[in-house]
């Protein structure tokens, strides 16, 4: 079991769980060359996904929250990854890395690529130690099985998954018996609650958003962290000025502009996210004194771009309906990309 890296005397009201590679960091590991380059990168050479560090900092600045990182990166990278997070001003509470060398030494080759047997027990064990009232927002990506694992985790702790079904899922995902035991033990220790509000999936591979439709509206695929910030504004986790700060960082450091940001906003509206009130709050904040963003672009242009994208749609589509997730049907999402049972996207 992993211990917290930071002891906070106050119980957290909100827990933000993040994956690292392709979610927080722009990591390439599709080829051996990519893997080697990633392994030998120094902290300052690693690039965060635009807006990710600003989003984490803004969420943390609200207080009463906990940042828990569970990454598939090997434990040997801990020091360089910690240094990178510190460079970005990110303060974490839990930081769990994968024991890939241990898996290799013990001949547990499935565990090298498998995610379910690693991430699911790790986040369940973390949840077992969290206050029952703490709500959660999870961040992953489309490179591996994050949508599947996070959704399953949310439904397990909410009491919506049957133990028999869970066993079938773990079998189908080829989880080792000791990992399965850890899952069941942590699950049984976790009080029943329904704390997971959102699961953001960073579309690093630009997987079509419909690929995640079966997980229901709780899972929101995002092309960038401005989109996540907009949804978190609507959900009450961020204020409009905080969203503007994130947007400014993306404009200044990653070449985003008024068109990419307003298109991102409209993309969410078209997927049925109820962002009208968030948009109004954003416009109000933009009209207020904000020297930083005024220096970037004349205010009327920004407001006009967002208003036009909203008006362009006519009647906004209804939000997608909530639905029960059939995990056995979606089991191919949980398998490593190289697995023969994994369907192509």
């Amino acid at each position: 079991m992993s211990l917290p890296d930071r002891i906070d005397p106050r119980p957290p009201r909100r827990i933000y769980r993040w994956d690292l590679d392709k979610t927080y960091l722009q990591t390439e590991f599709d080829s051996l060359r990519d893997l080697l380059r990633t392994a030998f990168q120094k902290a300052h050479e690693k690039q965060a996904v635009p807006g990710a560090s600003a989003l984490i900092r803004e969420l943390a600045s609200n207080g009463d929250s906990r940042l828990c990182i569970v990454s598939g990166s090997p434990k040997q990278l801990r020091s360089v990854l910690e240094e990178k997070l510190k460079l970005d001003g990110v303060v974490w509470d839990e930081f769990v890395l994968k024991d890939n060398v241990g898996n290799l030494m013990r001949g547990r080759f499935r565990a090298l690529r498998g995610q379910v047997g690693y991430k699911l027990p790790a986040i369940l064990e973390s949840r077992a130690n969290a206050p029952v009232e703490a709500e959660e927002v999870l961040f992953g990506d489309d490179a591996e099985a994050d949508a599947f694992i996070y959704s399953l985790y949310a439904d397990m702790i909410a009491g919506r998954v049957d133990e028999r079904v869970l066993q079938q899922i773990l079998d189908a995902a080829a989880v080792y018996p000791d990992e399965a035991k850890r899952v069941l033990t942590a699950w049984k220790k976790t009080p029943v609650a329904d704390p997971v509000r959102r699961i953001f999936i960073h579309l690093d591979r630009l997987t079509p958003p419909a690929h995640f439709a079966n997980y229901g509206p709780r899972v929101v695929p995002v092309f960038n962290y401005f989109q996540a910030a907009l949804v978190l504004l609507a959900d009450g986790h961020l204020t409009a000025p905080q969203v503007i700060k994130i947007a400014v960082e993306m404009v200044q450091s990653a070449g985003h502009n008024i068109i990419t940001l307003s298109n991102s906003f409209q993309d969410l509206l078209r997927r049925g996210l109820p962002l009208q009130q968030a948009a109004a709050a954003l416009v109000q904040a933009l009209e207020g004194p904000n020297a930083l963003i005024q220096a970037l672009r004349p205010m009327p242009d920004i407001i006009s771009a967002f208003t036009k994208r909203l008006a362009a749609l006519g009647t906004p589509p209804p939000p997608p309906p909530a639905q029960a997730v059939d995990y056995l049907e979606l089991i191919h999402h949980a398998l490593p990309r190289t697995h023969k049972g994994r369907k192509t996207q």
Partner: protein
Amino acid sequence: MATKLITIAFDVMGSDHGPAEVVRGAAQLSLESPHIHALLVGDRALIDDALAETKHSGERISVQHASEHIGMDEKPGEALARKPDASVSVAARLVAEGEADALVSAGNTGACVLSCARHFQLLPGVRRAALAAVYPTRDRHGEKADPFSLILDVGATVEATAEDLVTFAVMGAAYARIISRNENPKVALLSNGTEPNKGPRQVVEAHAALSAMAGLKFIGNVEGVDIPKGTADVVVTDGFVGNVCLKMLEGVHDTVVELAQYAYKESLRWRAGLAMLSGGIQRIKDITDWEQYGGAPVLGFDRIFIKAHGRSKARAISNAGKVAAKAVAHELGKAIQQGLAR
């Protein structure tokens, strides 16, 4: 220097293959060309359904809902009057208002040209717009070694004056310079003989004017036989003759394909012969693949419009978007105006 961001409005509802094919083309463009943004105009629900299933960059695509569209078999004037919210009309308006830099449509050609005429302005010095078309030729052209030549007008202006023909020549040359990277394109008038005095009065007058024009490589008259040879890079004619030529070229192509299919079915020896030639036939198909060209422009307006073929699939739509963006980036309108000022 940072690349200029260019927004292309796509009339999503026009293609013979339905809206999903145009959406897929724009989605492909969003992945391949970071400096191009696609504004998809059409039925929002249909666009969203197609986009949700297609790999794309959500940051580079936006949607403008348009509740109506014009079918291929509708009369352009009547249909546009009856359907004020038709996708092609809305898209042209958005381009005119500066929401996008150029328009791409695979829809009803007449409705497209009419929408442009209603929303765009003719360039100073241009009396009539011209619809251009590209066609495969024997010779290669320009820095890109295009196996295509340009013919204009192919239907926008049925009766062209000598002045119109001269304008078409300048516009066609500017387009070839920018899109085919052909710095000094050979321009010719289509006539019934190569002598300067051959052809109707307006062709003879245009010949005299073009011969005296500086900065244009006018090679005189060409005959119909020169079109597929690629004797000229830009062939100038009026919309009536141009349209007849274009349809004839398409008809010859279709007939050759039908004859080949007939031969394939009819005799084992012919089938064997075709099989032996298949590599060469495929190569010819590759070099004359119109989908790589994407579409043809309507020239003469202050905004860029690329007419994609009605049968365009995603790749052709994506390439039409790239051609439109290239024309915008190289300021085709300004190049035409500079040519006319000479």
